[in-house]
């Protein structure tokens, strides 16, 4: 009804305006700029900052932001962003200027690119592909590179220590993350995330793959440098790690990049393990709306657990982080693969 009216209004417009409006209401523009695309991911990133501050305050018996904005200080974020953007960007004298200036942007671009490969419902995806999960993992594997270059280009000692910690942690934890994802791919029989979600219409993969989900979640925590794996930026040990020399707009961009990456990993967890958009139907809502709703709810549940972990646990030391990775996570992920393979083989033999 409304769509017809819009179509009629557009077709009655003069020419350059008509093409423009057709473009604005086209699938390409809506996907890229509004829903799974730019507007949604940036607004969600900002919401996540506010949500984390409020929830963390509850965990610590505080109130959190309260005064800016009528409801629970929602505008505190805007105030913070304006404050940071109004600060001077200082480039240390020992820095390699071109790298120091461009790498925060590169980090944000790579984090935002992750959203192109995440489906939010049947058809709600920017780049549908048979190898969507591999593409997601490829971008994720690239994402530490700008951070390492940024730390190297800072020309300061604390970022340099942060760089070494970051390199060990992030490149180490990509192995268990990939091995955990391999279990899901084997069970669903596809690298296409939409197919993986469809394969979970009866039982979400968290049930047969408990080990894999645990490994995925812990590795995702480490990949997004969140407590208890925040050693690369440990603020009570090495000032602020690799971010020490960044100020003003650079700092806002780095923080936004970190939140986008964390949330993208939460969405991936919701899609691969928690059944994606399969959920009880909501009355009066068409499936095109309820599917993204369930994905977002499940991802926010994962994000809530991450925040609660941040509120409850102290930071690991680097040797413990590295030990946990290869002593527990990798064997668990390989066992999970073996169990998955055995289950598949058993069902095949029984069916034959």
């Amino acid at each position: 009804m409304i769509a017809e009216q819009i179509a009629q209004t557009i077709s009655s417009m003069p020419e350059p305006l008509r093409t423009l409006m057709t473009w604005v209401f086209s699938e390409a523009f809506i996907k890229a700029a509004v829903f799974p695309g730019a507007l949604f991911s940036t607004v969600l990133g900002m919401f996540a900052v506010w949500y984390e501050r409020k929830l963390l305050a509850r965990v610590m018996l505080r109130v959190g932001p309260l005064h800016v904005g009528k409801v629970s200080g929602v505008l505190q974020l805007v105030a913070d962003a304006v404050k940071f953007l109004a600060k001077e960007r200082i480039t240390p004298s020992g820095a390699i200027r071109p790298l120091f200036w461009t790498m925060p942007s590169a980090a944000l671009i790579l984090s935002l690119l992750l959203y192109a490969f995440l489906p939010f419902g049947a058809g709600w995806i920017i780049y549908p592909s048979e190898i969507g999960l591999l593409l997601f993992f490829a971008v994720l594997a690239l994402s530490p590179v700008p951070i390492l270059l940024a730390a190297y280009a800072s020309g300061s000692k604390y970022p340099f220590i942060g760089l070494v910690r970051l390199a060990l942690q992030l490149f180490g934890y990509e192995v268990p993350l990939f091995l955990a994802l391999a279990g899901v791919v084997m069970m669903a029989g596809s690298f296409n995330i939409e197919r993986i979600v469809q394969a979970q219409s009866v039982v979400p993969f968290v049930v047969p793959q408990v080990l894999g989900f645990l490994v995925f979640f812990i590795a995702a925590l480490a990949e997004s440098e969140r407590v208890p794996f925040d050693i690369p930026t440990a603020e009570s040990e090495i000032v602020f790690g690799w971010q020490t020399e960044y100020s003003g707009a650079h700092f806002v961009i780095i923080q936004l990049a970190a939140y986008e990456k964390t949330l993208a990993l939460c969405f991936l967890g919701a899609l691969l393990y928690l059944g994606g958009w399969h959920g009880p139907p909501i009355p009066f809502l068409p499936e095109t709306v309820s599917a993204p709703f369930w994905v977002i709810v499940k991802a926010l549940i994962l994000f809530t657990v991450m925040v609660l972990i941040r509120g409850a646990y102290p930071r690991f030391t680097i040797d413990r982080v590295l030990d946990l990775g290869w002593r527990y996570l990798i064997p668990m992920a390989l066992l999970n693969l073996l169990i998955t393979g055995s289950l598949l083989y058993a069902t095949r033999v029984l069916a034959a």
Partner: protein
Amino acid sequence: MPLESRPALRLRVAPAPSATDADDGDKLSPEHGSAMADQAGPLWFLWDPFILYVILVLLAPDVFYIVSWLIAPSRPSRVKRMAFESGQAPIRSALSSFPLEYFPYVVIYIAYAVVAVLVFFSLLSVLEAGVTPLTLTLLAVAAVISVYAGSRLRVASGRRG
């Protein structure tokens, strides 16, 4: 550039969605690039969700820098530009050599990266031909060795030895 002549970067590991799949309510998004085929023109890339998204993502950091350029002051001084070193004047270059105690972990994780490659290729074979006893044996060997290594090997560095 006509759309048809652009190389399609596709690696198929699963069979393409067929018409019979669609009949059982198995709704998959069409492969990338099919939706905008009718909109070819000089601005064809604006009708492609992915290319449009990449353009927007490339513009995203610039928004912050433009706002910052408009409202942030710029009064650099020698003291401000010093590298942060807890209030001291920095001594020597930051890019000095430094003892890395956790070197054995690098070797361990590189070894496991090779295992990850092995797992990837066994995955491809599983997707092509299903689980075979050979794949199961490979996975079992990898799992048993990793459990054994994780429980028995000692890393001769770090505080806990």
